[in-house]
């Protein structure tokens, strides 16, 4: 037995007596566990299992970077190779969290450099990452392979240059939807000529032009490339040349799909797409039109995920494209396809499990375009396996939602955004309570719910009564009184994340969840009726929670305008900026 471990489990003799497995067998078995939940459960069985699990764990997922400190992490898990970290509260995606709030990766990297020198993978969401951090990462971790940055901020393309230059074993560079300084595309030239290990390259969300020659040579020499998502600076004929070099791609994100092609170029493009037999995911297609979309029909036979959320397609174009995608399971579109386009979805995509409809003009005052309840209904009639929906619309009715969830009872994620805040059922003028009541009654597997429209406390009574598997709830401009929030806190046993904005919930509601918050990841409340006194009381009663209030010029006297409550074993933040008050 490992002498280090013998020291740390003093009751090992007892463990051996109680446990029928020798340690080596336990190690081997636990090493096979992937799921974080399973590992968590295993670690609670006994001290022996706790230690066996912590030594064998190679991947750790931290849903809130402030719930634990890097020091505590490395102490418990000595052999981590892959780290997944999430930082800011989700509403930071919508500008509700000021700059410099925190969630900086650097303090983590400093500790990792000492304890995880063989770190291979880092996946960050909503973290602040500086160029210095990226350079530090590239230089200190010689085995580093995989970097994924989603919705992060604080770095520039210079940081990417450091990664490309120094990470000799890089297999993945995945840069998605970050708030970054896009200085130039020169970072792409930094991959050395003898660098061939890349399997995943996603720079679709960067805007600056890259050197096509560099890209083409990179793609040509990286024989294991499976995922390639380029940005808009790549033209169609350039795309054709890339496809010819990488026909085994499984995921492709195209550049701009608008270009004047000669007939020969069009034929070449079509041939190139025909050669892509392994394509499962397709995205990009910005400015795609009926002119060139047919070129990619031959590549669509095995598509399971089609992301058209940056391609403003019309209904006919979508219909024609979908006719070639019989195996589609996930579809993201812009509401330019309108209800007619969604009818085509219902007619063509019987295997569909996930649909996301994004608004082309989210901030238009007059919502006379886009999709309505009919489009959603049409999809529900044709796609009975639908389990994930995100739907931005201008109007909805209770009856439509009731029918939709009768057609599709398997919803696990139901996120409905009626874009006008507090808008009632447009046919009956009633609140949308019955719609969400129908959702929670008919969909027992529901894990995530986002509500919208005019809603009274009744919606939350329904949620508390029926949504027994609910883990994440997003609420905005809804509810009538504290009672609504209380119903949810008292009724939903699996609730982990609750985010609320602009609702009439106050201290009574906040404090009704005293016992609850320690079993949750976090609570966000902004522009509600919570006061500083209420928050102070919560902080006093629950010392293992961090109760943070963000100062805001909008707040009235004594009001706690933005409140973020989360459990933590690391104590109060040491890096809080001046505008974040930890109570």
């Amino acid at each position, binding site marked *: 037995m490992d002498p280090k471990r013998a020291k740390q489990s003093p009751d090992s003799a007892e463990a051996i007596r109680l446990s029928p497995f020798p340690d080596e067998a336990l190690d081997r078995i636990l090493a096979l566990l992937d799921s974080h939940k399973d590992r968590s459960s295993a670690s609670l069985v006994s001290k022996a299992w706790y230690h066996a699990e912590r030594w064998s764990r190679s991947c750790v997922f931290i849903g809130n970077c402030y719930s634990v400190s890097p020091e505590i992490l490395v102490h418990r898990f000595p052999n981590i190779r892959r780290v997944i970290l999430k930082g800011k509260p989700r*509403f930071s*995606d*919508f*500008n*509700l969290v*000021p700059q410099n709030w925190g969630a900086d990766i650097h303090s983590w990297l400093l500790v990792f450099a000492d304890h995880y020198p063989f770190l291979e993978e880092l996946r960050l969401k909503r973290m602040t990452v500086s160029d210095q951090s990226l350079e530090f990462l590239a230089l200190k971790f010689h085995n580093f392979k995989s970097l994924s940055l989603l*919705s992060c901020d604080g770095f520039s393309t210079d940081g990417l240059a450091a990664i490309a230059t120094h990470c000799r074993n890089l297999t993945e560079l995945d840069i998605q*939807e*970050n*708030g970054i300084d896009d200085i130039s595309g020169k970072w792409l030239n930094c991959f050395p000529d003898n660098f061939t290990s890349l399997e995943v390259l996603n720079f679709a*969300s960067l*805007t600056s032009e890259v050197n096509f020659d560099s890209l083409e040579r990179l793609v040509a020499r990286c024989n294991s490339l499976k995922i390639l998502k380029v940005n808009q600076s790549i033209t169609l004929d350039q795309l054709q040349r890339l496809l010819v070099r990488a026909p085994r791609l499984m995921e492709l994100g195209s550049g701009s799909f608008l270009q*004047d092609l000669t007939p020969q170029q069009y034929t070449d493009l079509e041939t190139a797409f025909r050669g892509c037999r392994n394509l499962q995911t397709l995205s990009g297609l*910005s*400015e795609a039109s*009926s*002119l060139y979309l047919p070129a990619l029909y031959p590549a669509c036979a095995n598509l399971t995920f089609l992301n058209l*959320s*940056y391609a*403003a397609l019309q209904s006919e174009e979508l219909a024609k494209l979908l006719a070639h995608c019989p195996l589609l399971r996930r579809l993201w579109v812009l509401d330019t396809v309108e209800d007619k386009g969604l009818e085509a979805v219902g007619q063509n995509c019987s295997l569909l499990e996930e649909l996301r409809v*994004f*608004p*082309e*003009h*989210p*901030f238009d*005052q*007059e*919502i006379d375009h886009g999709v309505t309840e009919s489009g959603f209904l049409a999809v529900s009639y044709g796609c009975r396996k639908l389990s994930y929906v995100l739907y*931005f619309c*201008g109007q909805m009715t209770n009856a439509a939602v009731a029918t939709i969830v009768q057609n599709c009872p398997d919803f696990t994620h139901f996120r409905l*955004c009626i*874009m*006008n*805040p*507090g*808008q*009632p059922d*447009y046919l009956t*003028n*009633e*609140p949308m309570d019955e719609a969400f009541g129908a959702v929670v009654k008919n969909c027992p597997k529901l894990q995530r719910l986002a509500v919208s429209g*005019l809603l*009274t*406390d009744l919606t939350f009574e329904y949620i508390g009564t029926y949504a027994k598997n609910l883990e994440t709830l*997003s609420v*905005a*401009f809804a509810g*009538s*009184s504290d009672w609504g929030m209380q119903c949810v806190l008292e009724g939903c046993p699996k609730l982990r994340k609750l985010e609320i*904005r*602009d*609702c*009439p919930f106050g201290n009574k509601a906040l404090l009704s969840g005293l016992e609850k918050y320690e079993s949750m990841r976090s609570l966000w409340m902004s*522009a*509600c*009726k919570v006061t500083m006194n209420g928050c102070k009381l919560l902080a006093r009663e629950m010392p293992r929670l961090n109760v943070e209030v963000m100062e805001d*010029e*909008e707040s009235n006297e004594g009001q706690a305008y933005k409140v973020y409550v989360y459990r933590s074993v690391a104590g109060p933040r040491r890096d809080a900026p001046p505008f974040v008050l930890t109570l």
Partner: protein
Amino acid sequence: MRSFENDLNLEATELRLGLPGSSHKRPLSDHEARQDGGEEGRKTASSPKAQIVGWPPVRSYRKNSLQHKKADHEAASGIYVKVSMDGAPYLRKIDLKVYKGYPELLRALENMFKFTAGEYSEREGYKGSDYAPAYEDKDGDLMLVGDVPWEMFIASCMKLRIMKGSEAIGLGCGLQM
């Protein structure tokens, strides 16, 4: 807890961007919708309805990217369509946005391909010429230039074709191919 009457209450169905509670009697946070105090800085409302911060919940990246697209399209302008003439060895390209109406367009085509279009009438098409200017619309149909209002034409025209000879006469009589 409703404040809607049972009879026709048009005000209740009016789409508005104000927070609930501003016009209906519901207890709510007592602040008005405000402009974004973040990146865009403080702007006084030029439009009557103020934009609510962070609503609808669309990620900043997506919001910015769609706005850029819109701006690009407005800046790029130009509706370029190919023009072919029966018998000519190669095609030309013109920008429809440059012309204010059919007369200007026809003059430009006549100059470019050295032909005369003839007199247009709704009943007889282009009379007095061997040529008829036609275009392919969004549905793929071959149409005679001049039948629809100019705005509709430039929105639906995919490419132009100057037809010659007997085919042209057939088209000129209003028959579609």
